[in-house]
Structures are given as structure tokens and as C-alpha cells.
């Protein structure tokens, strides 16, 4: 799409070219007219010289006749002036007609005649001066002079006619050139006017449309700019408020960082004290670990003895079963003996008494074996409980030993970690101090930002005013390029 300047430049360029064409045509016409005028002037000069030649010869003839008649030398002045002026005129005429061979030929014909005429005039004047009037009259009457003059008049007349023909021809050429120049100027001017008018209308219409669209864009942009400026102003205000809050928060952060640095310093001291305490605890734990290992060996021994005791109890139980079985069988035998004795009547009474005593003994043995079984069961239960408790204790001791090993490893790790903690606490202290410095710098930067936010708020308000002015200018520009609808 062409820009405004390009369109206007194109319009002016076309108009300039038209004017240049018209000027060139006019210049060429004027040049032709000037050349034609020069040629006409030249023709008039030739005509004047032709007439001058005849006039000088006539003046010389007139002076010759006056002198012949009067014999007074004063009448010879025209003769002398004419004879003296003719060569210069002939020379001028020859130069003026140098481009015309016809005229040069006629001048070649005229020059001997002029010389003969001048010689005839001189002859007659010489004769009169000698006092021979008759001779003089005789020469004049001979008509030679008249004949020469007639020829000269004929030649001059031919030259005059040719020059007048040339004059007419050149006058016609001048008329044609002048008419062409006039037509060119008139039509070119009209064409130029029409073109300039059309170009003006087109450019005006195009510029009105484009400028109108641009102005509408400017109006909408102004509205958006106003909206954006409003948002920017409110945002800058909020930013300013937020920056104030941030400033307060950073101040608190600065105080907190200093407290952290102090706390880190205290942590470092505490870690060093803890490290020495852990080293002491490590030695104690090592001693305790040795004691626990001794306990573990004792417990293992107890477990072995208790297991042996359990096995022995089981063996006792087996033997007791045998005794119980024997007692039961004895009891059965005694009962059967009692039955047999009672079946034997009086003879079996004594035997019955013995059998009864045996049965009682078997009963008592059975009762005792029951008690022993109960005791063995209690012993076995106690042994089992003791073994389980001892195994639990052994496991606890194992666990304790492992835990002591873990505690020892943990204490070593704690010692290493405490070293790391001390270093870390020192690094935290240094970092926190650096952080406090950085926070102070950030605080300053935030203050600058807060100032910048306030300045932004002010500039946003100014932008808002400028956007309003721009909107007003757009409306005025719209009014300028668009006629009112009801106009």
C-alpha cells in the first residue's frame, strides 16, 4: 500500500512531467519561432541590400547626370557615395546569401554589370570634366548605360522575388509553429488541469479513507491506552503498597536473620559440648558392651544347664511312669488277690489282709507317683519357663549387645555428625550474616522499587491524561477529515 507521501509525490511528479512536456513543446516552438524570425529578418536584410544596390547605382547615375548637365563638382557627391557604397553592399549581400546558390549566381551576374555601369559613369564624368559635352552626350545617348541598368534591375528583381517567396514560406512556417505551440499549451494546460484535479480528488479520497481508518485505530488505541493506563496506575498503586509490605517483611527478615546467626553460633557451641559428652559416653558404652558380653556368656551357660535340667526331668518323668505302671499293676494284683482271698473264705482272710496292705502300699505309691508327677510337671514347667525366660534374656542380651554396637556406631556417627553440625552451624552463621547483608541490600533495592512504583503510578496517571488528550485529538482529526453526516 502506498504511503501518503508516495501518493502525493506521485501526483506532483506526474503533474511535473506534464508541465515539463508542455514546457519542452513550448520551448521547441519558441525556438522554431525565433529561428523563423531570424530567417525572416535575414530575408528582409537581403531585400534591403538588393534595394540598396539599385538605390546607390541610381544615386551615382543621378550625380553623373547632374554633373554632366552642370559641370559642377558638387553634383558628384551622390555619384561618389553610390560608387563607394556599392562594393560593401554587394559583399554583405554575398555573405547573406551564401547558403543560396541561386542568389550567388545572380550576384555573380550582377557584379560585372555593376562594374560596367561604374565604368560608364566614370567615363562620362571624365569626358565632361574634359569639357567634351558632346562626347559625353554621345556616350549617354549610346544607351549602353541604360541597358546595363535594365539588366541590373532584372537581376535585382529576380533576387527580390526569390527572397519574397522565401519570406512567404518562412512566414507560413512561423504560423504553423505558433499554431502548434498554442495548441500544445492549451491542450497540455487543460490536460494538466484535469489530471491535477483527478489526482487531487483521488488522493483526497484515499487520504481521507486511510487517515479516517488510522484515526479510528488511534481512537481505539487511545481507549485501550486509557484502560491500560488505568490498570497500570492501579497496578502501580498495588505494587507500591505491596512494596511497602515487602519492605516491612524484609525488615523482619533481617531481624530474623540476625537471630538465626546468633542461634547458629549457640548451636555451634552446644554441638562442641555435645561432641565431648558423646566421646565420654562412647567410652562408657564400650565398657558396658564388654559387661554385656560377659552377661551373655553367663546366660548361655545358664541356658545349657537349664536344658540339661529339663532333659533330666523328662528322664525322671519316664522312670516315674514306669513306677506308676508298676504301682497300678501292683494295685490290680492286690485287688485281684483280695478278690481271691475273699473267695477262699476264712482260709483266705490272712492272705486278704496282706493283699489289702499291698494294695494300700500300691495306692500310696500311686499317690506318691502322682505327687512326684505333679512336682516333675512343675519342675518341667519351671524349667521351660526359665529356659524361655533365659532364652528371652539371651536374646535380649544379644539384642542389647547388637544395640550397644549400634549405639557405639551411632555415637561415632553422632560424633562425626556433630563435627558436620558444627561446621554447618558455622557456615549457617556466616551465610546468615551474608544473608543479612544481602537482605539489607534487598531492602534498599525494594525501597528504590517502591519509589519507582510511585513514579510509575505518577507516569501512569500522566499516560492516562495523555491518552485522554490523544482521544480528543483523534475526535478532532475525525471531524477534520469527515464531514458531518447531516452537513
Amino acid at each position, binding site marked *: 500500500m502506498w504511503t501518503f507521501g508516495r501518493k502525493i509525490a506521485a501526483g506532483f511528479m506526474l503533474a511535473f512531467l506534464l508541465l515539463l512536456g508542455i514546457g519542452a513543446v513550448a520551448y521547441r516552438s519558441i525556438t522554431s519561432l525565433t529561428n523563423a524570425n531570424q530567417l525572416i529578418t535575414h530575408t528582409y536584410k537581403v531585400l534591403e541590400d538588393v534595394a540598396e544596390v539599385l538605390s546607390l547605382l541610381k544615386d551615382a547615375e543621378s550625380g553623373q547626370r547632374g554633373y554632366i548637365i552642370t559641370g559642377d563638382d558638387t553634383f558628384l557627391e551622390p555619384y561618389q557615395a553610390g560608387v563607394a557604397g556599392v562594393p560593401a553592399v554587394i559583399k554583405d549581400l554575398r555573405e547573406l546569401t551564401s547558403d543560396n546558390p541561386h542568389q550567388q549566381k545572380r550576384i555573380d551576374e550582377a557584379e560585372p554589370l555593376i562594374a560596367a555601369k561604374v565604368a560608364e559613369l566614370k567615363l562620362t564624368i571624365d569626358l565632361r570634366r574634359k569639357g567634351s559635352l558632346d562626347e559625353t552626350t554621345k556616350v549617354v545617348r549610346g544607351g549602353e548605360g541604360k541597358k546595363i541598368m535594365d539588366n541590373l534591375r532584372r537581376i535585382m528583381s529576380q533576387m527580390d522575388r526569390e527572397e519574397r517567396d522565401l519570406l512567404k514560406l518562412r512566414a507560413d512556417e512561423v504560423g504553423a509553429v505558433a499554431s502548434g505551440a498554442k495548441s500544445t499549451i492549451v491542450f497540455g494546460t487543460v490536460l494538466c488541469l484535469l489530471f491535477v484535479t483527478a489526482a487531487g480528488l483521488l488522493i483526497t479520497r484515499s487520504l481521507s479513507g486511510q487517515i479516517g481508518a488510522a484515526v479510528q485505530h488511534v481512537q481505539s488505541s487511545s481507549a485501550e491506552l486509557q484502560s491500560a493506563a488505568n490498570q497500570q496506575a492501579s497496578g502501580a498503586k498495588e505494587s507500591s503498597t505491596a512494596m511497602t509490605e515487602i519492605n516491612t517483611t524484609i525488615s523482619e527478615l533481617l531481624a530474623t536473620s540476625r537471630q538465626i546467626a546468633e542461634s547458629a553460633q549457640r548451636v555451634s557451641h552446644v554441638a562442641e559440648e555435645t561432641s565431648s559428652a558423646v566421646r565420654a559416653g562412647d567410652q562408657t558404652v564400650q565398657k558396658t558392651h564388654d559387661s554385656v558380653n560377659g552377661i551373655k556368656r553367663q546366660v548361655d551357660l545358664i541356658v545349657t544347664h537349664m536344658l540339661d535340667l529339663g532333659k533330666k526331668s523328662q528322664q525322671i518323668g519316664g522312670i516315674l511312669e514306669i513306677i506308676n505302671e508298676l504301682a*497300678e499293676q501292683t494295685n490290680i494284683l492286690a485287688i485281684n488277690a*483280695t478278690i481271691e482271698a475273699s473267695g477262699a473264705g476264712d482260709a483266705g482272710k*490272712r492272705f486278704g489282709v496282706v493283699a489289702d496292705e499291698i494294695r494300700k502300699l500300691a495306692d500310696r505309691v500311686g499317690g506318691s507317683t502322682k505327687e512326684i508327677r505333679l*512336682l516333675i510337671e512343675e519342675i518341667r514347667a519351671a524349667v521351660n519357663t526359665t529356659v524361655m525366660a533365659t532364652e528371652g534374656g539371651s536374646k535380649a542380651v544379644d539384642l542389647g549387645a547388637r544395640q550397644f554396637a549400634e549405639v557405639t556406631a551411632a555415637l561415632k556417627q553422632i560424633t562425626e555428625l556433630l563435627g558436620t553440625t558444627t561446621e554447618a552451624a558455622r557456615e549457617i552463621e556466616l551465610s546468615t550474616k551474608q544473608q543479612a547483608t544481602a537482605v539489607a541490600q534487598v531492602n534498599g533495592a525494594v525501597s528504590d522499587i517502591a519509589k519507582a512504583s510511585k513514579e510509575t503510578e505518577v507516569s501512569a496517571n500522566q499516560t492516562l491524561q495523555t491518552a485522554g488528550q490523544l482521544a480528543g485529538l483523534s475526535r478532532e482529526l475525525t471531524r477534520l477529515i469527515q464531514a458531518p453526516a447531516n452537513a
Partner: protein
Amino acid sequence: MTEPLAIASRAVELRSVFDRERAIPLSTRAIEQVAGLLSIRVSGDPYAIRVSEISGLANDRKVVAFPSSIPELLGVAGIRGGLVSVYSLAALLGYGREADQARWLILCEAEEPVGLAFSAFEGYLRVPVTQVYATNQRDAARAHVKHVLRTADLVCAVVSIPDILELIKRRCDNSRPAKER
């Protein structure tokens, strides 16, 4: 747990009792009417059996199952060189066959030797006959219980072995074919 001192004193007491009983002459012993009873358990219930009504006691004898129309008959066992028909005392008393193995046998003398199997034997009792009371119930299901033993720490029914043997006899007679009777 019994203390060792108490055990020692008990041993002394037992020894003195044994020596005293051995020292008493048989003729001077108190003539007291006592009854010899076996204390047993059938299906968990306590019972007593008169020693005078049986011919022997045995345990852990192998009982070979014997096909029979008498449901109470468990089989036969070899005791003292002869075959003995073994019946379930619990079944005869109306409990049905005991779930536990009846490892005890009382031997009875009838037309044929009979064994009555039961699960638990608790001991031999010598009690005054005054502690054995007759019952006056007429319940057909309890026809074999005609006496009750009541002591300071025990109350139980006394099974009448002759009645049990009679019951077995009736069952055997009923199971025989009519021509054989």
C-alpha cells in the same frame, strides 16, 4: 509345692502306720462290717462296684471285635488263658458306647466268663456297710442300681453286677434263634 520337711514327716507317718498295722494281731482287729468297693467312672459319672460280685480286675487287654446282634458286645479278649466276652458297661447302663477307649475290665463269673469294660478306674474303697444305702426307686432304666454309696466326700451309685449279668443273659437269649432256645 510340697515342702521337703512335710514329705519327710509324711514318710515317717506312713512307716508308723504300716508298722502299727503289721503289729496288730489279726484276731484282735476290730470286727467291723466293711464292704469292698471299686470306684470307677462310666462316661464321666462315678459308680461303685462290689468286689464280692466280681472275679477279677484287668486292664489294657486287647479286645477283638466280634460280629453280633447284641449292640453292647464289644468282642472277645484273652484273659488268664481263656476267652472272655467283653461288654460295654456304659452301653449296658444306658449311656451308649463310650467315646474313649475302655481300657479297664472287670471280670465276672456267670455261665460263661464275662468282662465289663469301662474307661476309668479310680481306686479300691473299703467302707462300712452303713454307708451303703438301699434305694427304693422303681425306674426300669435304673434297675441295675439298687444301692447308693455315701461317704464324707463321695456319693455314687452301686452297680449291681448280678443284675447286669442278668441283663446280658436276656440279651443273649433274645439274640439267639428260636429253635436254639
